[in-house]
């Protein structure tokens, strides 16, 4: 249940940020766009431990963000489930970002132009044309990022540790179970994780299939 809570919250945040940044990258031209794209995709290729270390440095009591949170709100993120959410969000973010960007870029500008000529403001063009034509790609990305967040191990372990019932997520519990030779628990957790991931992948493939035959 903790895993679901962490993965669900992480998916929520990474989707909101992923879609916003993707929209920016797909629609606007600005200097350093490709650098931004590379930085946003970094979590896919960086070893989770390196990522976890970055987060630890940033969010730790002596880090710039962690220190500020500690002083102003006396909030500590390290070794809490919220910390695990942040770790999972960062790791899952590129999946939503990449597929949303592709989805936005696949919406032809002529549909948006057509809507403008038909009296629609930029906001209405987005709500009535861009979003409906891109939402399947966004949803597919969100589901992949959910699966990724659910399986997140390295960065979460570094940031949130493995406190049973508090920050011990499914994938970490599997590791602990195997380490302590608890095969029964390990098998059970592995099967659950596998089933959830297969279901999510099937669903996301379904949404990635184009619905409208192009003219």
């Amino acid at each position, binding site marked *: 249940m903790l895993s679901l809570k962490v993965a669900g919250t992480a998916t929520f945040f990474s989707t909101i940020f992923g879609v916003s940044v993707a929209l920016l990258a797909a629609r606007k031209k600005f200097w350093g766009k490709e650098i931004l794209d590379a930085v946003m995709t970094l979590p896919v290729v960086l070893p989770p431990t390196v990522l976890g270390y970055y987060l630890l440095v940033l969010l730790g009591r002596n880090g710039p963000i962690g220190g500020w949170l500690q002083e102003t709100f006396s909030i500590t993120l390290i070794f809490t489930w919220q910390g695990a959410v942040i770790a999972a969000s960062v790791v899952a973010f590129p999946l939503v970002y990449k597929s949303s960007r592709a989805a936005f870029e696949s919406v032809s500008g002529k549909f948006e132009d057509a*809507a*403008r*000529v*038909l*009296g629609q*403001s930029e906001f*209405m063009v987005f709500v009535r044309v861009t979003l409906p034509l891109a939402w399947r790609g966004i949803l597919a990305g969100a589901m992949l990022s959910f699966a990724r967040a659910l399986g997140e191990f390295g960065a979460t372990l570094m940031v949130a540790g493995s406190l049973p019932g508090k920050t011990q997520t499914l994938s970490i519990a599997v590791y602990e179970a195997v380490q302590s030779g608890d095969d029964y628990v390990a098998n059970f957790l592995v099967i659950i994780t596998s089933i959830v991931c297969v279901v999510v992948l099937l669903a996301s493939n379904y949404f990635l299939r184009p619905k*409208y035959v*192009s*003219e």
Partner: protein
Amino acid sequence: MRIDFSAKKRLYSGGHQFSLDIEFSSEEDITVIFGPSGAGKSLVLKMIAGLEKPDQGSVKIDSSVMFDSAQRIDMASRERNVGYLFQDYALFPHLTVEENINFSSRRALLTRPRKDEARLRELLEVFHLEELAKKYPAQLSGGQRQRVGLARSLMLRPSILLLDEPFAALDPLLRMRMREELKKTQRLFSIPVLIITHDPQDVAELAQRLILMDDGIVKDIVTLIGAPYRDLEGKPIRPKIRELLLRATGALDE
């Protein structure tokens, strides 16, 4: 109705430079801009619709100034109220025929759409779309899609109808029929029409005022008053058009 258009614009893409410098006006019902692809015709249409911005110039339809670089007037596309038929019609694939035609009646999320039921019924009837109202664009034939596109662009009673290569995507037989339908539509709604095309047949059958364009500039402007097939003396216009078109495309040099 009178349209006055003048625009200058420089474009760069991949080290390639294109400059557009054109000026024309027309008071005829059907104006045709003819030129080879790459002449800048689409750019002109987009500038009238407010989808592209000239570096310099002005766009006027009757007394309404939609763009004027000297007076710093630049109306947004949504305020210009022009009808625009895109080359492949750009029907919204996620909406039905009826929803496509009705698209312009909703302007904000929270206010109720100002539905003009009578206008919708009229357009569905005129364009023989009643049976297809609940279908999606992917389920329609080329000619049906074009009729939906026309109906959609006429919903708001625009002051001018802009057509971008309207028949290029259709097969030749259908092209002939759709040209006739367009003439009928023009008369029925008494709306001025501006067509851009690279098909000489469109010129021969539709043009009342012909603007020849090439490489970003106007080569020639001809008025073919009255029936589009006759010139001022009542002589068939085709040989003259043929000569003009050949000269415009460089096949006939003086």
